[in-house]
């Protein structure tokens, strides 16, 4: 590492675990940090960790973390020389990246042109076809329902309709038969218009039992660009990832080499630099892979690549943005061991994975060899409905896949979250499932397989269903807590006045 820090001060235009992750990298590089926050986040951890903090506006993302003008003003006022966008919010907004550069600040990410080229799914798909990258059979630029009907017939049902400007599963509809087509087009259009201000749609073959396998790529501004292997991200709900791992149990060394090369070619086609991810759809029956999209930013699941490839992606993002040369070649990288990430969400699997909000009464993270937790919450934190319900990323690294699964099971069982419902028990059920053990989880597996056995989803039903062995221990613990925690600082507020049914309260009155 050079002795001089690549920047003096970086504004982190994000919140939660990723803001904290970036600030840690800055600290290690000797760079000062500026946090930004909304009124709802005044006491958030990322604000406490930064050297300075700037209030952006009210809780609504539009007024705060999506407010480009306020962010750039905050960077200039605090004399920061660069902005790291994290993921989500403005991270893939080409206009923001351009505005940052116009303000003589460095945007830590790719060029606005690269973001623009990959941001539109339809245009990206066309560019990839030209670069010789396999894409899912389909059509772009259709308008009338009739055109869609004809296209769907040619592709063959089921088909997938999705927003050209889309992302995150929005404006996306699976259509199984022609009778559903016009409704799907209409609702996808309105969702696309609402979410992206752009109602254009594309249509393609829906690959029902496909896997989602993506490749991390990394490049500098001097023409070096490598891939850092794959991440298997097929455990999804609502088209969003919840568990990721690397290496993928499906890839042979030959396929890995081929897909890695395709990812590098795809990235070079848009003159890419900094961290990015090429997402592929992988059909396990044919071993065919198809370009899905490129994420022109750091991914949520970047830690599993960091652990197995042995590189600090965020530090290198910063150094590359400052113009440093990336000193490694493709041959310098190898996959070491196996890593898995579980995204701990404040959401209720038994209630359609809908978010759960509230105050964290207890938040205890697991510790141990090979366990990494990237989180933005602690006991007492508020989980509100304004932002993504990601509480923490639990990441494990071990010698091989079996050992990593075991390590994850132990770590999940030691992760205690009270106050909001989480998906921890649900992920435990996935880890213990033979389909996961066999690497047979496709992107529709959660809805197809796991949701059908509802007892996996809701532990609270155990007591109702009379699973006495489990229920009794819980009842005893809950009852004794009222006795043994009385008078302790954290529980005193609830042990008496606010609990109308507290029998110990009566005890006291008898004795007085």
């Amino acid at each position, binding site marked *: 590492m050079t002795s001089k820090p690549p920047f003096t001060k970086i504004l982190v235009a994000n919140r939660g675990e990723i803001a904290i992750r970036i600030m840690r990298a800055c600290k290690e590089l000797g760079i000062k940090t500026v946090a930004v926050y909304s009124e709802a986040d005044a006491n958030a951890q990322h604000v406490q960790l930064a050297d300075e903090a700037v209030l952006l506006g009210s809780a609504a993302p539009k007024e705060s973390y999506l407010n480009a003008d306020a962010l750039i003003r905050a960077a200039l006022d605090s004399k920061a020389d660069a902005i790291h966008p994290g993921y989500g919010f403005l991270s893939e907004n080409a206009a923001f990246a351009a505005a940052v550069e116009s303000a003589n600040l460095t945007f830590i990410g790719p060029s606005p042109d690269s973001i623009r080229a990959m941001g539109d799914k339809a245009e990206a798909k066309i560019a990839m076809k030209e670069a010789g990258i396999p894409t899912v059979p389909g059509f772009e630029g259709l308008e009338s329902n009739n055109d869609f009907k004809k296209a769907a017939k040619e592709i063959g049902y089921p088909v997938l309709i999705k927003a050209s400007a889309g992302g995150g599963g929005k404006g996306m509809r699976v259509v199984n038969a022609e009778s559903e087509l016009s409704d799907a087009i209409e609702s996808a259009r309105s*969702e696309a218009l*609402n979410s992206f201000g752009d109602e254009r749609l594309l249509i393609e073959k829906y690959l029902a039992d496909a896997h989602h396998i993506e490749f991390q790529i990394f490049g500098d501004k001097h023409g070096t660009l490598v891939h850092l292997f794959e991440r298997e991200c097929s455990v999804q709900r609502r088209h969003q990832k919840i568990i990721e791992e690397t290496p993928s149990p499906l890839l042979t060394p030959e396929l890995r080499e081929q897909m890695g090369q395709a990812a590098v070619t795809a990235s070079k086609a848009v003159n890419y630099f900094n961290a990015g991810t090429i997402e592929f759809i992988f059909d396990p029956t044919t071993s065919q892979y198809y370009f899905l999209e490129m994420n022109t930013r750091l991914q949520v699941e970047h830690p599993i690549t960091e652990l197995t490839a042995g590189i600090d992606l965020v530090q290198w993002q910063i150094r590359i943005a400052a113009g440093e040369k990336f000193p490694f070649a493709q041959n310098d990288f190898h996959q070491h061991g196996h890593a898995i990430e579980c995204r701990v969400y404040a959401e209720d699997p038994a*209630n*359609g994975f*809908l978010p*759960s*909000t509230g*105050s964290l*009464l*207890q938040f205890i993270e697991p510790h141990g060899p090979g366990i990494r937790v990237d989180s933005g919450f602690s006991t007492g934190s508020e989980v509100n*409905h304004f*932002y*993504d*319900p990601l509480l923490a990323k639990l990441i494990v690294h071990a010698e091989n896949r079996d050992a990593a699964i075991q390590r994850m099971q132990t770590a*999940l*069982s030691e*992760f*205690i979250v*009270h*106050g909001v*419902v*989480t998906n921890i*028990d649900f992920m*435990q059920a996935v880890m213990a499932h033979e389909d996961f053990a066999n690497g047979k989880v496709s992107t529709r597996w959660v809805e197809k397989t796991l949701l059908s056995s509802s007892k996996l989803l809701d*532990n*609270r039903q*155990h*007591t109702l269903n009379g699973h*006495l062995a*489990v*229920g*009794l*221990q*819980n*009842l*005893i*613990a*809950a*009852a*004794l*807590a*009222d*006795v*043994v*925690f009385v*008078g*302790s*600082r*954290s*529980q005193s507020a*609830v042990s008496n006045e606010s*609990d*109308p*049914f*507290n*029998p*110990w309260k009566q*005890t*006291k009155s*008898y004795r007085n």
Partner: protein
Amino acid sequence: MEADEELPKLTMKINFDTQTLEINPSGDNYVASVDGKTVSVQIVRVDTIHGRMDLLIDGERVTAYVSSDMAKRWVTINGHTMMLTKTSGAKQGVRHDHAGGLIAPMPGQVRSVSVSVGDIVKKGQTLLTMEAMKMEIRIQALKDGKVKSVFAAQGQTVEREQILIEMEE
């Protein structure tokens, strides 16, 4: 209660959801019974900061984490978390689930309300849209009918299970 005061020595009945637990002191330990099943309980260690108790229940070592929020108790044992609700012990009434009412499935903000009182709606028709945590949620009519009341307005923040729209029976 003072920390050094000894623990209560009375027989206690505590109701959680539909179950009643009885705890009796027995020497330095306790005897707990529910549904006629009786077990011995010994408190081995208590960590108040983390809400952790190490217990011996019928000789089995059990580590439990418990948090309290009003009448709710969050309990984690062996990595599994449950939520119990303390009740008065009176027989629980049938849960009023607002058969004709449409409730918010999650906390969020009302983006639009597309019906008003007296409107005739068809099954599946979108009556209201909400937004929360980057998701759009459509509240749709469960059957054909007439709108009786509208309790939500555009821009309003609503809690989970809050009634948004009521239909005539």
